[in-house]
């Protein structure tokens, strides 16, 4: 039997779409207190509504405070759309290099090595700016000792397996 969630569905959508703190989305406890104990059922219903417009509810991380729920794109975007969102080809290429290299170093890579790799491809000047942008956006984080690791946004937005398969396959779509 289909249940009707009414206002609780709206409340869940508002919590997930509108950014309130530093990070987008809502924590499990927030949803539980504002939407109810069966918030996962409400989110499943919201997912059905979002599906036709290529969006989905994502569950990210398992930190001390439990998972965080966000709304993200289900499919992918074209280069022209990325440019409209303010991402230049060089910036995207740099992000692909940074994430892939950190992965190849098992999740932690010295900042200096990443800088050298990016400099060879995109130039020294751009590298310094780009790494700052990636860090500010949450794609990477810098730990003590100058080690870079993947940030919350990479874990939320990037299909690591697909990225590595695509790169190792010479930049071609998997299966080509």
């Amino acid at each position: 039997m289909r249940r009707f969630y009414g206002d609780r569905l709206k409340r869940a959508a508002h919590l997930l779409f509108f950014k309130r703190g530093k990070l987008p989305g809502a924590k499990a406890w927030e949803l539980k207190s504002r939407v109810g104990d069966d918030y996962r059922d409400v989110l499943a219903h919201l997912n059905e509504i979002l599906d036709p417009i290529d969006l989905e509810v994502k569950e990210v991380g398992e930190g001390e405070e439990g998972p965080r729920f966000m709304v993200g794109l289900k499919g992918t975007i074209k280069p022209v759309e990325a440019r409209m969102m303010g991402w230049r080809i060089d910036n995207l290429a740099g992000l692909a290099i940074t994430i892939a290299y950190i992965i190849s170093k098992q999740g932690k890579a010295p900042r200096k090595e990443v800088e050298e790799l990016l400099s060879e491809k995109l130039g020294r000047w751009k590298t310094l700016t780009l790494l700052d942008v990636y860090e500010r956006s949450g794609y990477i984080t810098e730990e003590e000792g100058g080690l870079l690791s993947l940030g919350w946004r990479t874990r939320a937005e990037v299909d690591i397996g697909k990225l590595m398969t695509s790169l190792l396959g010479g930049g071609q779509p998997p299966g080509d």
Partner: protein
Amino acid sequence: MGAASRKGLLEILRDCELVERRAIDPFLFDARRALGRIREIHPKLSSLEDHCLDAKALNAISRVLSLQGAQLKFQSSSLYSPPEVLKGIIERLAPEELAGAFLRAWHPIVEFERLTAEGIQAGLSYWGSLKPFDERRRRIDKGGGAPPEGVDEGHLERIGIARGDFTRKMMEYLEEIVKRSKGGRLRYWDFVRAPSFEEVIERAYYASFLISYGFVGLERADGELELSLKAEPAGRGGMGVSVPISISNEALGGDLE
């Protein structure tokens, strides 16, 4: 514990630290040999300090063993690609192909920014409590004058500050500092000095970026500002403080036209 034993433990700690900093492959560390060495040293431990060092070395070895375990698991996963292989691939691919690979794996998060009544109230109260600009200028004893204005890139080009490729120009000035300082130091005013005021401003402008991005250091020695070359560019935040430098004819030795 003798000096040789202490040196042995310190060497183990140093090697473990290199592995943890990802400077060397975890499997280049011979844990069996290191444990054997600790076993040899153990009977010679006498003071509390010796025992602490011994425990620290053991703890470091256990962390390296854990990293070796993680590496084995990672190498058997589909994500594994040796960094050297990946570097080769990255070198071969054009930025467009790299960006394409990323876009196929990218599912951006949706986030709406919005204004709230509380946010507007906080902003209003901040601006309301801020003293007029002229008053603040007087407080910092800078006198009156016109308030600062923003300029666009075209204006900077017209007044001769921005000319074409910024990065290329900056690197040219860096090369000049390298040559003139002979790898050591160069007086700031000697570098900035030029026949025309426009050129002085341009040189000071590029010098500020070289300093901010950590290619060059700025220090005061014997009352003189000096530029010094950095062995390693600091990347961002080369200098942690803002240094206002007033350009006057006097500072330039009366050379300005």
